[in-house]
């Protein structure tokens, strides 16, 4: 809210500079966000928190200043009384939504431009001046925080006002010339026939004050905050007026504001002021709050004198009485936010000054922080990925629904079932993601377009899958992507990108002491967005935990990306928790020497390394310690449908030094097994 320094001075006689005053206001809870010098004045932009509608006016801020600085507050006087003749015809049909309605008629006014001083004040506070009648209602709104409305009396059928809900009326044109759809419950101001204003929000075009208006009816009312807020929200129409009503105006200022405006109109636009009609069906009831002095001091952590506490509350306009340790506090009508003891504590704390509160450390019984298994696992996964060369990205949880189609998922794929945001900012943020992959592809695209190469990224984040519960299932996934830079092979090995990422996954899992991981190509389609011949399941024992593979060429095209791209996913990080060995047991170091034998063979191209390894392991011999692949060769001197594989096998006994003869026996069983089951041709 914009507040003029000069205007404040009319209420409190302070001599603080604008900067000092701004600091004092800020430290009492209403943050001065900006200080702007304008011609002959200084304007503060103050952030008023939702609990302090009493500060949404010049007088309100002045009241704060008077409390903070301990200076008297000058109040507004009008010279009008309650008994200067009959007032207009006012009826409240919905007293549950309108607690008070005050009105006067000003006849034979002369609409025209406002004087300079008024124009300047409105402009300083960010309101555009129009003509005197409307400008004065805005002026009083700024000054006292009470929204007012002026109707052209001669347009009011029956020259009367009825406050009631919209009922069957479906449309209403507000004075900004917009036709608004009405809801049954919305509170309207009616004349004898029709609605003439959206109560507390905006007047109607049908009764707008114009250059030619002669007689006007002035409204000052208290509307129920929730009612104004719900109408304002459903129409998407927020005004200076609705902003104050929905936070709560001071019901005891309603009449003063009416009189203030009427007197100003008579002064600046001429005219005769009628008597007042004050319909006040729901009278203000003050409330008393009891709070113990001990509670105040112990909650803040200070030791204030009772007299200091009483004085502070009185300065705030609160009525205070004390009985022993208890004080009874009655807040004024403009402080609806003060409801219970803690609110009183806050008032005292902020005026005492948060800076004056000491710093202490809590005294409590020692207890260990609980171990958070998932967080610890995630931390360790992240460190393994970075240790394998992959950098962490954090992408939005949103997904553009169109992107899902680009992954070529099957129609019944669960990931197509998106959870939609009902009020998205853009298409890109209109649904919650069910997969981490598209964002990783976008990360590649962005970085490639900026000239970055050799991209290794991973992300560990939640995906959101609709479920039968009230809330969706949030599944913590891990995904990684590698884009190999083929132009930069100087020191990089020449193998496919797939093996880089597979190595990282092996590294990550073995760092968790998971030993029984397997990469299984089952022959069916692993993921529709992966190359069917270059993808597989990541298994721990017999449990599938994820997939890894080269991106499908069709998907590459859909995402407008190309190159050697490999993607790996762990579908639910929590499944890893159940597969991490709970206990590590030391195995004695072998003390007898080992014997190594190489076995080199020609096999059919579709024989996998894993199947050779398994065949060797099938030769159940306790002396086979380790089987290591050291060469794969295809090409010249080998038939086109064959490849050459070479393994180094290490033999060792735990009980004695092996003899050549013992190793030879097992070795020849291995050779036979390879020949029999894989049709291998052994090479020497």
């Amino acid at each position: 809210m914009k507040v003029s320094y000069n205007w404040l001075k009319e209420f409190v006689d302070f001599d603080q500079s604008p900067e000092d005053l701004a600091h004092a206001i800020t430290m009492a809870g209403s943050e001065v966000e900006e200080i702007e010098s304008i011609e002959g004045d200084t304007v503060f932009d103050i952030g008023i928190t939702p609990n302090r509608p009493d500060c949404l006016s010049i007088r309100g801020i002045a009241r704060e200043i008077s409390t903070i600085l301990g200076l008297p507050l000058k109040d507004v006087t009008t010279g009008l009384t309650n008994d200067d003749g009959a007032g207009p015809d006012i009826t409240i049909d919905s007293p549950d939504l309108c607690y008070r309605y005050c009105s006067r008629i000003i006849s034979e006014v002369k609409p025209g431009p406002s004087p300079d001083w008024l124009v300047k004040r409105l402009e300083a506070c960010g309101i555009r001046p129009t003509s005197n009648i409307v400008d004065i209602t805005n002026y009083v709104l700024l000054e006292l925080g009470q929204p007012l409305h002026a109707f052209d009396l001669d347009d009011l059928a029956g020259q009367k006002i009825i406050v009631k809900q919209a009922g069957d009326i479906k449309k209403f044109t507000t004075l900004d010339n917009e036709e608004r759809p009405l809801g049954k419950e919305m509170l309207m101001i009616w004349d004898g026939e029709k609605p003439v204003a959206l109560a507390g929000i905006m007047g109607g075009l049908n009764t707008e004050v114009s250059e030619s208006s002669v007689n006007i009816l002035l409204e000052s009312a208290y509307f129920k905050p929730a009612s104004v807020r719900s109408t304002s929200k459903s129409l998407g129409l927020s005004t200076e007026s609705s902003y104050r009503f929905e936070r709560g105006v001071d019901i005891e200022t309603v009449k003063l504001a009416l009189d203030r405006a009427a007197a100003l109109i008579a002064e600046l636009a001429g005219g005769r002021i009628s008597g007042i009609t004050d319909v006040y069906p729901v009278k203000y009831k003050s409330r008393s709050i009891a709070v113990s002095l001990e509670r105040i001091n112990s909650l803040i952590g200070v030791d204030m004198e009772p007299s200091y506490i009483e004085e502070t509350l009185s300065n705030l306009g609160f009525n205070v009485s004390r009985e022993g340790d208890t004080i009874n506090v009655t807040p004024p009508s403009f402080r609806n936010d003060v409801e219970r003891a803690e609110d009183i504590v806050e008032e005292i704390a902020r005026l005492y000054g948060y800076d004056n509160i000491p710093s202490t450390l809590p005294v409590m019984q020692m207890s260990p922080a609980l171990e958070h298994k998932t967080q610890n696992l995630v931390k360790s996964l992240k460190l393994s990925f970075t240790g394998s060369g992959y950098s962490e990205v954090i992408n939005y949880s949103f997904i553009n629904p169109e992107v899902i189609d680009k992954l070529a998922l099957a129609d019944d794929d669960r990931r197509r079932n998106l959870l939609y945001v009902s009020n998205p900012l853009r298409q890109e943020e209109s649904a919650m993601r069910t997969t981490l992959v598209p964002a990783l592809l976008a990360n590649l695209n962005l970085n490639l377009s900026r000239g970055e190469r050799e991209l290794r990224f991973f992300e560990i984040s939640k995906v959101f899958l609709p479920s039968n519960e009230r809330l969706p299932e949030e599944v913590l996934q891990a995904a990684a992507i590698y884009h190999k830079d083929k132009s930069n092979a100087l020191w990089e090995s020449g193998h496919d990108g797939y093996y880089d990422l597979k190595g990282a996954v092996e590294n990550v899992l073995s760092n968790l002491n998971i030993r029984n991981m397997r990469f299984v190509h089952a022959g069916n389609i692993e993921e529709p967005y992966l190359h069917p011949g270059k993808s597989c399941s990541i298994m721990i024992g017999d449990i599938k935990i994820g997939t890894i593979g080269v991106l499908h060429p069709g998907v590459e095209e859909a995402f407008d990306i190309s190159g050697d791209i490999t993607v790996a996913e762990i579908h639910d990080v929590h499944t890893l928790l159940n597969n991490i060995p709970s206990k590590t047991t030391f195995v004695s170091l072998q003390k007898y020497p080992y014997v190594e034998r190489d076995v080199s063979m020609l096999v059919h191209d579709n024989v996998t390394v894993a199947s050779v390894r398994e065949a060797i392991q099938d030769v159940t011999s306790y002396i086979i310690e380790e089987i290591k692949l050291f060469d794969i060769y295809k090409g010249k001197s080998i038939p086109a449908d064959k490849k050459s594989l070479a393994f180094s096998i290490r033999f060792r006994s735990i009980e004695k030094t092996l003899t050549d003869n013992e190793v030879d026996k097992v070795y020849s069983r291995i050779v036979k097994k390879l020949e029999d089951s894989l049709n291998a041709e052994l090479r020497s």
Partner: protein
Amino acid sequence: MQNDIHSIGDKAREEISKASTLKDVQDLKVKYLGKKGILTEQLKTLKTIAREDRPSFGSTLNKIKKSLEDLISQQEEGLKASDINNKLKTEQIDVTVPGCYTRYGRLHPVTQVLDEVTGIFTSLGFSVEEGPEVELDFYNFEALNMPEDHPARDMQDTFYISHDIVLRTHTSSVQVRVMEKNDPPLRVIAPGKVYRCDADVSHIPMFHQLEGFMVDKHVRMSDLKGVLELFIHRVFGPDTKVRLRPSFFPFTEPSAEIDISCVMCKGKGCNVCSTTGWIEILGAGMINPKVYEKAGYDPEQYTGFAFGMGIERVAMLKYSIDDVRLFPENDKRFLEQF
């Protein structure tokens, strides 16, 4: 005879001294001292010599043999040393060619700051808790004293999934979830993603927060001040000034915003702190009794404090990052700086 072997010795010495390669020395060793070497052959003639001459002949022969052996090993050592020297003179690698290794990846700066902040609070005995990101209106608003149609809801632009399900706007949503399941005393932090329906130069629709709260008998506002000062001094250095300012959050009473002296200008005033010398870093306060009521705690018995901070904001101040939109962009050049 003696003269013969002396001249053999002299000749051998000369040849060995002149040898210029290790192989030549080896060959000469074989030639003179090998199983069929010249000197070895001479030794075999010992039996043919007159008995009385044998000792002096033998001792002479052994002396010569010994002196040759010494000379040979001396030559071998010299030649080996010069061989190594020659190698060292000619062999060279280009030590400036880039090393061959897998470059370490980096943790996202948000993760790094979250880890640091989490570490500080766990060291004070705070336990880590989590809550759902797609949250019931109840936990995000209602239980935190923000009923529907409350203007405080305007403080946060909310993404809605349906009328009673939202993307959580703050990690404060974890408060009542934890309180429902646990009795005081409580010391909890809840890090995680939050969402606001807001995107411009200084706002991103998803960012990270860390919520912290403590509930026990006799927790004071001065304790809140002490704990947060400790935290700020750890993250931003012990000389950082801390200022509490009254503010408003529906779920705390009294409420405070916590400012720190500007990390850029050290409080002198610059464009980062809008010349005020102060930067807002945290929102906090004493937990509102209305929250305890929703959680089923006795507000007469327990007091406590809560605080929340934006992790991106802490990271921006810590690393002098000037654009919040860099965090979700994931440019490798950005990620590799931390």
